[in-house]
C-alpha cells in the first residue's frame, strides 16, 4: 500500500494493520526515516518536503510492485510525508511482511533505497543561513544501483 500525506503516521498502528488477519506472516521489517537537527555542520530548524503529486504515487506504486515481483511478500507499505517537518518528525515509513525474515529485510531495504533515487521528493532545509536545497547523494545512487539487474 502507498500513501503520500502531510499528516503524521502511527508506526505501531500501521505495522499492526499490515499483519492483521494473516497468520502466515512470520516477519515484519520496517524502516522509519526522521528529520535530523543537523546536516553536515549546520543546524536545521525545519525541512520542507516538496513533491510531484501524481508522479509520486505512480513511482511509489511501481517500486512496491517491483518488490513484490522480486520477493515473496504477504504485504507491504510505503507512507511518505510532504510539507514542513521539524527535527524528530517522521518523514517516511517503509514496511514489509513475509513468512521469512530474509525476504522482509531485503525487500524493505530495496524499497527505501529505490525510493530515495526515484520518488519525486525534494528537501529544502531551513538553516541559520536560510533555505538550502538538499543535494542528491552519490551514496544513495550507489545504494540504489545495487538493486539494478
Amino acid at each position: 500500500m502507498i500513501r503520500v500525506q502531510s499528516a503524521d503516521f502511527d508506526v505501531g498502528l500501521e505495522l499492526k494493520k499490515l499483519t492483521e488477519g494473516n497468520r502466515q506472516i512470520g516477519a515484519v521489517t520496517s524502516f522509519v526515516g526522521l528529520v535530523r537537527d543537523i546536516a553536515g555542520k549546520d543546524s536545521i530548524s525545519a525541512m520542507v518536503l516538496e513533491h510531484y503529486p501524481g508522479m509520486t504515487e505512480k513511482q511509489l506504486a511501481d517500486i512496491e510492485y517491483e518488490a513484490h515481483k522480486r520477493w515473496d511478500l504477504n504485504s507491504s507499505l510505503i507512507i511518505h510525508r510532504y510539507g514542513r517537518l521539524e527535527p524528530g518528525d517522521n518523514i517516511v515509513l517503509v514496511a514489509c511482511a513475509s513468512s521469512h525474515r530474509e525476504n522482509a529485510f531485503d525487500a524493505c531495504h530495496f524499497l527505501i533505497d529505490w525510493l530515495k533515487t526515484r520518488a519525486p521528493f525534494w528537501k529544502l532545509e531551513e538553516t541559520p543561513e536560510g533555505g538550502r536545497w538538499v543535494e542528491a547523494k552519490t551514496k544513495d545512487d550507489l545504494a540504489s544501483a545495487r538493486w539494478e539487474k
Partner: protein
Amino acid sequence: MNLLYFAWIRVKMGVSGEQIDPPKNIKDIKGLIDWIKQRNQISNETFSDISNIRIAVNQEYVDIDHPVLAGDEIAFFPPVTGG
C-alpha cells in the same frame, strides 16, 4: 503542452508551471529545452546545465531524446532527495 517545475527549478523560473504551445518542429525533449531557453534570460540560465535536471513525461522518467507530443505533461526537476 503542460510544463511543470519543481524545487530550485521552480524557484528560479518563478512559476510552478506553464501552458506552452511550441512550434510544430519541436519533436523531442532536447528540442523543447532549446526552445524554452531562447525565450528569455531566466529560462536560458535555468536550463544552462541540464546535467542537474531530471525529466519526466507524463510522470515517467525519460531521457533527453524522448519524443514530446501536444497534450504531454512534461516536468523538469533536480535529482530527487526524498526518503
